[in-house]
């Protein structure tokens, strides 16, 4: 049973990944991404990482993918992207490198026991059935409390940053919106300078 779940989820992950990279339409890529993320959540669950799975669904699978879709439709770039071959070497090399990376990682994984030394005693996983919310949160708020607070700060910075980056420059908003598509050098550079 365990194997079946694993293989089905693994297949879904890989299909989704391949769909992301080969989707002509970015909307398709986003939907395939959703598939991958959801399957990864299932895999988390299978490894008894319940909280992480839940957070994955909430943050990744919903918020982030929705954000992607918003931007795609907002920018109106849900069109096919032209396939150009100005640098054919890029494609070939990328695939070759991909294969090499895979081989390399597999070699490393297979041939070695990476585990050396004593195990950390930060937090022992609890019994599988009880879920690990308690263990995770206990570890998070005691051993890693600093990092936790830092991530809060990071989120604030990210919010402020994204607001600053994405807004149009102040009083020129009305004037710029007329000539925005025509986008003359001076006003364009003006907005660039003030947002930078």
């Amino acid at each position, binding site marked *: 049973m365990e194997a079946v779940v694993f293989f089905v989820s693994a297949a879904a992950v890989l299909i989704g990944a391949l769909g992301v990279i080969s989707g002509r339409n970015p909307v398709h890529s986003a939907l395939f991404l959703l598939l991958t993320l959801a399957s990864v959540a299932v895999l988390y669950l299978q490894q008894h990482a319940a909280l992480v799975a839940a957070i994955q669904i909430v943050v990744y699978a919903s918020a982030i993918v929705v954000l992607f879709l918003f931007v795609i439709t907002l920018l109106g770039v849900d069109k096919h992207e032209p396939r150009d071959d100005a*640098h054919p070497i*890029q494609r070939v*090399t*990328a695939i070759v*490198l991909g294969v*090499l*990376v895979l081989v*390399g*990682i597999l*070699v*490393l994984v297979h*041939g*070695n026991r990476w585990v050396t030394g004593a195990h950390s005693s930060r937090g022992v996983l609890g019994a599988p059935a009880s879920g690990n919310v308690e263990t995770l949160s206990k570890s998070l708020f005691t051993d890693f409390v600093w990092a936790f607070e830092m991530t809060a700060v990071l989120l604030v910075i990210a919010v402020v940053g994204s607001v600053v980056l994405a807004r149009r420059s102040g009083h020129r908003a009305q004037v710029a919106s007329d000539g925005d598509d025509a986008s003359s050098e001076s006003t364009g550079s003006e907005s660039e300078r003030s947002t930078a």
Partner: protein
Amino acid sequence: MHARNLLDLAWLIPAFPAFGAVLLLVFGKRIGEPRAGWIGTAMIALSFVASVIAFLALRSLSPDLRSNVSQGFTWIQAGTFRVDMRFLVDPLSSTMTLFVTGVGTLIHLYAIGYMHGDSRFSRFFAYLNLFAASMLVLVLGSSFLMTFMGWEGVGLCSYLLISFWFERNSAAVAGKKAFVTNRVGDFGFMLAMFLIFQRLGTLDYSALGSTGHVPSTIASLPHSSVTAIALLLFLGAMGKSAQVPLHIWLPDAMEGPTPVSALIHAATMVTAGVFLLVRAHVFFDFAPHAGTVVAWVGAITALYAASVALVQNDIKRVLAYSTISQLGYMFLAIGVGAYSAAIFHMVTHAFFKALLFLGAGSVIHGMHDEQDMRRMGGLKKYMPITAGTFIVGWLAISGIIPFAGFWSKDEILAKAWFSHNYALWAVGAGAALITAFYMTRQVWLVFYGPERFRDDAVLVQGGGDAHEADEVHPGEVHGGAEPHESPWTMYFPLVALALLSVVGGFIDLPFTNHKINVLDRWLDLPESHQATSFGAGLILSTVALTIGVIGIVWGVSIYRRGLRRGGVDPTVERLGGFAGVLQNAWYLDIGLAHFVGGPVTSFARFLSEGVDRAGIDGAVNGIATAARGGSGGLRRLQTGLVRNYALGIALGTVLLLLYVATRVTF
């Protein structure tokens, strides 16, 4: 000690003319003629007084202490290399300062009259003073480098003064020629200095020791080094003192005003080379082969220049070649080790050569700028004082007793004989004979015989001078004023120099056992070969005197009636085709010009275009081109596309990963 305190003030000797030069350069126009001339003369006269005081102070010291280096300041201090600006007063430099300033004062006085009416009068005296200051620094310097400073200074002043009348193209060219030829010699001097510093560690004259005390540093030098130093110093001297083949500038230097010729090209600057070699005589003591070279170059120069002087028609050119010839004698003396004889001849030569030049200048002045001897004649009755003093100079240079030239020239020839260099003696004697002859020719053509300047249109026959003075105006004399004697400012120095030419020889009479060889003992230079016996010396002196007399008699007999009909020079007629060779100075100058203009220029062009432009520039530009090409290829990596850069990162990561994988696995 009292004397030493006085000697420490030796810096005043060059300071007076230096101050004069600055004063006249800055305020010359305002001071104007003739006060500028008097100021210049006064400055050098003060320098002369200072020299006399220094001389007396030095004399009061005992012989082995007669050397004082004044306090100065350190000019260069770089690691172990140290050069001080100090002045060395010892018998040699004291003697030099005495006659440089003494003769210099007389010439300055003379120039006041000679340069009368010139538009750049005060500039002239500024340059003269500057020259005097440089020459005194040269002589009084306490190290080779200070002497070199003065050396360059006199070279500069020589250039400035030769091309003083630079409106004349020939004068400007002559100035440049003098400077460039000097430079060739300076090259030798500099190389010698480098070698000296490398071997001895210092450029100071104190490293050269004194007579009887040779420092071990020099005694232990390898023979090749000493010879090299000696020969390189001689190369420098050759440039300054116009020895063959670097003599070519001196005849052309006659373009300058006559006081310049007298001061610089007769009495002082050209003797700088002699001074240098005597100062550095310790090297020649240890390098007899170098001495042989010097002696032979000197002898050949003496003979060569005398032969050329034989057929020159310009009054100053004869004297120029005569100077070259007499300088050859001095180098002959140095070559055989007779250093004090060389200095003695230098001093007497200063007297009579300056006298002859100033006399020639007086003649030129009196003849309204006529310089060609074929248009003179019979001037004795118009310019008696000039003629009288000139005759004194003539007798001195021809070596007639008791005039100064006899004693000094005789001593050189005697030293040559007694050092077993009989061939050198023969060459020297031959040159003496020709000297007496051509000087007699000059005297007779100028002062005796018919007054050719009254002839109409004297045609020039049998080839002219290679370089005719530009100021010849054929029709000028008839209709122009008569020749006249010069003002007192000009003939007073003539008289003074004539007196010196008479009595000057007595400072070094060759009678050692009666202690009358004053100069010899004063200079305290290494003794060279003495006469084997009094009788042998007497015979040689008589021979020398006879040679001089023969030359004179022969000259008088040929030139008694002046030139032949049609203005033909008897000597030129007799020599026939060979006269052309002599008149063109054995084609040395012309040959050198062709050589430099031809092969040397081609070689220089090859170096400039072939080696420099194509080779070196090509290599440097080639590096730049290669860099551009290389970067042109590399810039194709910069596609501007982020994904290409990401590919690069991925590539690097993969390589690292594979490296780790293989290392860890195997």
